[in-house]
């Protein structure tokens, strides 16, 4: 599988291939550094127009890359189509490796592979919260981007830049959205809710009436309630929309123990057993979408990908779905809040073919490919220019209306907490999960959580 493309490749890298033991990883990464260094200069000489993906021209034989895309919804298929188009264009092969659906598990796999210096995967899809954790294992893409990075949202480029190195190229942007059943809301003359209290009320009214009318399985509201990163995203939206802060503020202060956050969690806790099934305590994105798309929920909180799935020809709710911004909290100083998500593409420092891998990343993040992905998969582009594109707007009419939601999306505190973000997030989702499962009161859980996060923080982040 590993083909040595060039005779100039240093021998030392060959020796490092078989070595997996940690003790040699320093030696190994040194070797890789040496080899990538050589590779780069080689590229500079050969590729005059890297934006055209002309790497095939340099090698007489094609090489094979491995790319790990997502597995949620259409992720795998849409990614594979893009990768195949690149293969056709360049003559190189690229294998799409499937990955876990939960982002927490994906990160664990990526960390294991990169921590061991494994070259098995060349291109990783990385969550917006990861560059700080994985940055030191990723290749600087700036020499390959040739200015293409300036076409993306500056905030996303800043997110992918670690210590002056562009380690990840933005691929698509995510924000939490409220999906609702247009037909059911019309039937009961209900407005699209703008506050969580309205949502609770509307969901209960419609659910009770429909259940009486015979649709016993109808649920009012479904979202991601399993103890994993997705719950952190959901709960952050509730709390931020109540003006309860973002767990840890930008200056490093632990802000989670406050009355507004308690109010938000109290309301969310009241949903279970009334408008939300207890089973939602074990829902990821796909479980929630499964319930909504089979016509068994009035409202759903999910990412933009669910739109294209709901509008699929085989979908039971095709043309019955509306999308809106998430509701705001009750009281003053509240606002609608959507958690900022999204995925970027990065090249492993241990890749045997960094130039080709970087070329694949540039191809997949290009305007043409992002446009295709927006139309066929509903993925939100990371290039502002595509938000006024006619074809894109025709496929996802809500793109234009929700531009504000994306602009004002709430980032998770991953920058300020750095490498401890995972622990903070895990402590947070477990505390929230305990409240939702009625094991603890919101007040006690958040007080305890604040102490735990302070413990993780130590003297400073």
């Amino acid at each position, binding site marked *: 599988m590993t083909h040595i493309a060039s005779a100039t490749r240093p021998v030392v890298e060959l020796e490092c291939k078989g070595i997996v033991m940690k003790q040699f990883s320093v030696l190994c990464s040194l070797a890789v550094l040496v080899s990538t260094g050589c590779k780069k200069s080689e590229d500079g000489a050969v590729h005059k127009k890297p934006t055209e993906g002309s790497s095939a021209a340099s090698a007489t034989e094609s090489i094979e890359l491995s790319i790990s895309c997502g597995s949620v919804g259409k992720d795998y298929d849409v990614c594979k189509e893009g990768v195949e188009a690149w293969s056709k264009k360049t003559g190189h092969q690229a294998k799409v490796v499937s990955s876990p659906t939960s982002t927490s598990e994906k990160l664990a796999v990526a*960390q294991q592979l990169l921590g061991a210096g494994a070259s098995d995967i060349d291109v990783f899809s990385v969550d917006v919260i990861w560059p700080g954790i994985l940055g030191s294992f990723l290749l600087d893409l700036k020499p390959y981007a040739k200015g293409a990075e300036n076409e993306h949202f500056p905030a996303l480029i800043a997110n992918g830049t670690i210590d002056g190195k562009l380690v990840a190229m933005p691929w698509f942007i995510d924000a939490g959205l409220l999906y609702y059943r247009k037909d059911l809301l019309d039937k009961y003359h209900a407005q699209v809710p703008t506050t969580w209290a309205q949502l609770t009320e509307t969901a209960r009214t419609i659910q009770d009436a429909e259940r009486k009318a015979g649709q016993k399985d109808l649920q009012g509201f479904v979202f991601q309630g399993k103890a994993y990163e997705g719950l952190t995203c959901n709960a952050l939206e509730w709390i931020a929309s109540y003006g309860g802060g973002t767990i840890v503020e930008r200056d490093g202060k632990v802000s989670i123990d406050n009355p507004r956050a308690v109010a938000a969690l109290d309301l969310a806790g009241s949903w279970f057993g009334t408008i939300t*099934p207890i*089973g*939602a*305590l074990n*829902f990821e994105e796909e479980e929630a979408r499964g319930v909504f798309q089979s016509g068994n929920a009035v409202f759903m909180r999910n990412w933009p990908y669910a739109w294209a799935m709901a509008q699929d020809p085989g979908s039971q709710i095709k043309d019955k779905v509306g999308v809106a911004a998430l509701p705001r909290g009750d009281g003053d100083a509240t606002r609608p809040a959507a958690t900022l998500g999204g995925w970027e593409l990065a090249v492993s420092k241990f890749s045997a073919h960094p130039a080709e891998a970087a070329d694949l990343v540039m191809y997949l993040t290009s305007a043409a490919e992002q446009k295709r992905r927006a139309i066929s998969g509903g993925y939100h582009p990371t290039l502002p220019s595509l938000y006024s594109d006619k074809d894109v707007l025709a496929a996802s009419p809500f793109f234009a209306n929700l531009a504000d939601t994306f602009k004002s999306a709430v980032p998770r505190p991953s920058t300020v907490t750095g490498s401890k973000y*995972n622990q903070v997030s895990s402590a947070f989702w*477990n505390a929230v*999960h305990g409240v939702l499962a009625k094991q603890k009161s919101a007040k006690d859980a958040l007080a305890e959580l604040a102490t735990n996060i302070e413990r993780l923080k130590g003297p400073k982040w």
Partner: protein
Amino acid sequence: MTRKLQTRDTSWLAASRTRSAWLFLAPMLVILALVAGWPLLRTIWLAFTDANTLQLEQRKWIGFDNFLNHQDGRWYGVLADPVWWRSVKNTLWFTVCTVSIETVLGFGIALVLNRSFPGRGLVRAAILIPWAIPCVVSARIWGWLLNDQFGLINHVLQSLHIVEHPVAWTADPRLLMTSVVLVDVWKTTPFMALLILAALQMLPKECYEAALLDGTHPIKVFWRVTLPLVRPALMVAVIFRAIDALRVFDVIYVLTGANEQSMSMSIYARQQLFEFNQAGYGSAVSTLLFFIVALATIVLLVATRVRLGED
């Protein structure tokens, strides 16, 4: 003189045998040392450092700080983490429940299978199926069966009017551990049944014939003849299962994820090692886990030896 020669011969022979025995054992010992001894020692050693999984080389010795340390009026370390103690509690509960239920059920099944009846070979093969399915696969299947929205089990319970609303088996904190125990019992009872069946088939017929002649009641035969005779094999099976159950990871992780309500010691260790990148702290957890399993094994072994001595 001849005798002297003979002893020298035998001692020479014995020495040569010992030598070749060691020679034959050596590859196994070397491999064991490499794949079991070395990682174990390294883990124990890492437990006393502040190593990070992503930068394993940059580490320093910190003594027992990973286990317990006191700073600014607060206790830190594994032993001060309530989540760890929760996972210990969960694991012990899981172990006690699954092993005892599996032993009783397995014994029953083994007794039935020990009788000859038509189609016995087929039943014996069929009963092994749950044990033969990879654990992750069977846990996934059960996850779908137990699902509260589209799961078959809720559908059946609802159509039989046993429950009114679907039961959230893998989400409701009051039912989580019960569901996990049920799935494990389904999966591992065949293993127990098979080990006990093997022991039953080795039993001497004379004891039963004697009991028959004496006209002993079958239940008395079971308590006085069968049980004492299979006890050694039974204890081996119980110890195997207990060690396995104390390390449980897959069933719980696939059904419920890294949820504190149902977290086991192995899930806790994995999370520290691979999600939080704390190689040092995670190794301390793994070391504790190792000693807990070792301790449980010793206790079980000693307990059975004492009881066996009484008989």
